[in-house]
């Protein structure tokens, strides 16, 4: 069968899949007796209608950029890293240990150190599944799922038995020193005399996330390592023939992937909660899957998809606040996006290919 033009493959197919997902989401809203138009209005108003809304939207988006990039890097190596949730949780542990161990005089010093802690812990949590996949052929999807649960148990233990301050009943670490608190975007805007997003959690991590997008793009498409990663992802036999070690690249790709997922912790743990709490990741690791799928595993796509999910998250919260639609609507939308852009994309692709083939034949005739 004739191939489609590139724009149809890269833009049209995912866009149509996305439209289908949203159309069915609208039907779900109708089914529970609400108006999709009204719901969308509340969401847009709540998430994008004010700088306050944007402050939350950008905060959520920052999380999703990191976890989306994590899935993306692994995807290019032909690996499905479903363990972003556990890796991000471990990243939080890394951040907490770094920030509690040293009396940091200033956030500008604490941030790089926390990033190292977050990335190293996240990467280490991906190392064992990566090594098992590369050396022993253990399916990485299953091992990373298992590691999510093991991370949750480990974190629970650390918070209850080790990091919990004496006398506190809360399973949470002590608060980080005020000197390590990251500047919020609202503070930065205020320095320029602009009042923007007062009392919102969006912080300087957002810019780190955007830089991470650029770096991942450079890595995947402009570096030797990226070429080797993509070569492995396309064909393991071809990669071996080209002298690329699958074991080495699998492990390196997963370390980078886990490190990116771990980095999310500078946003939610260091930037927002300013201490480590139980279940700090709140599913962002899994949303990374939806974000990467929707963003077609390209950093620009990931950035846009993360913003969209940030909007959905904040909008969904507003929806739950002002209407009778529960927050879980977002989970349904997320599921439909994953389903249609990730698993059912042939449902759109096959008819499209037929249409393009028919058009081409007509053109020739």
């Amino acid at each position, binding site marked *: 069968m004739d191939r489609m033009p590139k724009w149809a493959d890269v833009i049209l197919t995912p866009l149509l899949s996305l439209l289908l997902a949203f159309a069915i989401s609208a039907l779900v809203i109708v089914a*529970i007796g609400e108006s999709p138009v009204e719901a969308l209005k509340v969401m847009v108003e709540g998430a994008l209608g004010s700088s306050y809304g944007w402050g939350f939207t950008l905060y959520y988006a920052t999380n999703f950029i990191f976890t989306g990039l994590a899935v993306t890097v692994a995807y290019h190596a032909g690996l499905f890293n479903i363990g972003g949730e556990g890796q991000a949780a471990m990243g939080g542990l890394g951040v907490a240990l770094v920030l509690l161990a040293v009396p940091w005089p200033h956030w500008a010093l604490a941030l790089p150190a926390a990033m190292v802690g977050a990335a190293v812990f996240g990467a280490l949590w991906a190392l064992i599944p990566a090594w098992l996949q590369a050396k022993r052929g253990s399916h990485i999807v299953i091992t990373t799922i*298992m590691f999510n649960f093991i991370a949750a148990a480990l974190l*629970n233990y650390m918070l209850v038995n080790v990091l919990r301050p004496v006398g506190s009943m809360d399973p949470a670490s002590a608060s980080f020193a005020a000197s390590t608190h990251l500047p919020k975007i609202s503070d930065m805007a205020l320095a320029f005399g602009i009042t923007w997003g007062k009392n919102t959690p969006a912080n300087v991590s957002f810019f780190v996330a955007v830089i991470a997008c650029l770096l991942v793009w450079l890595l995947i498409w402009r570096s030797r390592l990226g070429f080797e990663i993509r070569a492995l992802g396309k064909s393991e036999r071809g990669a071996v023939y080209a002298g690329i070690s699958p074991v080495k690249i699998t492990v390196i790709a997963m370390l980078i992937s886990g490190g990116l997922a771990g980095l999310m912790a500078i946003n939610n743990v260091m930037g927002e909660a300013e201490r480590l709490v139980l279940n700090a990741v709140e599913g962002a690791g*899994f949303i990374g*899957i939806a974000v990467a799928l929707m963003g077609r595993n390209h950093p620009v796509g990931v950035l846009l998809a993360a913003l969209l999910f940030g909007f959905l998250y904040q909008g969904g919260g507003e929806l739950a606040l002002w209407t009778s639609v529960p927050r879980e609507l977002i989970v349904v939308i997320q599921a439909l996006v994953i389903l249609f852009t990730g698993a059912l994309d042939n449902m759109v692709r096959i008819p499209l290919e037929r249409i393009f083939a028919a058009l081409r034949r007509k053109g020739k005739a």
Partner: protein
Amino acid sequence: MMDFPTILQILDSAVRLMTPLLLACLAGLYSERAGVFDIGLEGKMLMAAFTAASVAYATNSAWLGLCAGILGALAMSMIHGLAAITFRGNQLISGVAINFLASGLTVLLGQKIFGLAGRTPSLQGPARFGEITLPFVDALRPVPIIGPIYAELISGHSILVYVAFAMVPLTWWVLYRTRFGLRLRAVGENPASVDTAGVSVARMRFAAVAICGVLCGIAGAYLATGISAGFVKEMTAGRGFIALAALIFAKWRPWSALGATFLFGLLEALANRFPNLDLGIVTVPSMFMSALPYILTVVILAGFVGRAVPPRAGGEPYVKER
């Protein structure tokens, strides 16, 4: 340190806790043996628990609830089949989507229907599966050892527990002693050979995925109308993933599935009974007990203690040669 009645109580609790695991594990076994990976067991069970509890509440009948549970899980199965078989999509991604779909839809619909923040009203009387007392319990009770084991451990469970245990030999028989089972296993190992023999690969895989839905449906119904008295948000609590772990632990074999789910059920029962298990030298925190099924599965997957090899064609959509 533990007397006989305590051990019996723990084993009894293990049997209750392993039942949903066993059903879901066998469900995954059919699907994966036919070459369709299923990480959506959790979502199917959750959906089944919700539909079972809702219908059991509305009709005041646990049996109608069970039927609804099966239908709920089947609906999820068909989505998985559509994505994985018909449209040859990524089976793992489809599984992830199904887990989220169930997690969101159950709360959304529950809130709409009952308005109790995702719960169903609590079930009473015939809306739940009660405990069955097996015959001769009283006659046998005075017999030492065997009497209490029969009365406490074997008797006194809901009918679905016995169904689950009966499914083990039945599954073994279907897989290894029937033509359907032979074809099902062949579809998972070498679909082209089955195709050459004139059997539809897609139809076989859909059949397997449907059986998977039915068993997940029973598992979910047991959770909501057997163990508990109604549906609670996220009530499966990772059981679908423990069942998945048990499936790998059992190396995709029915009798081993029984052993693996019993082991994992026992771990949960022990963790419930002894939040901090004191072994004299070290105290094992409950978190470690709850993580143990996953750790054991990773060890098994690593292949240091007996290798777990999945069905060869698992996870790959079948494309007919032209």
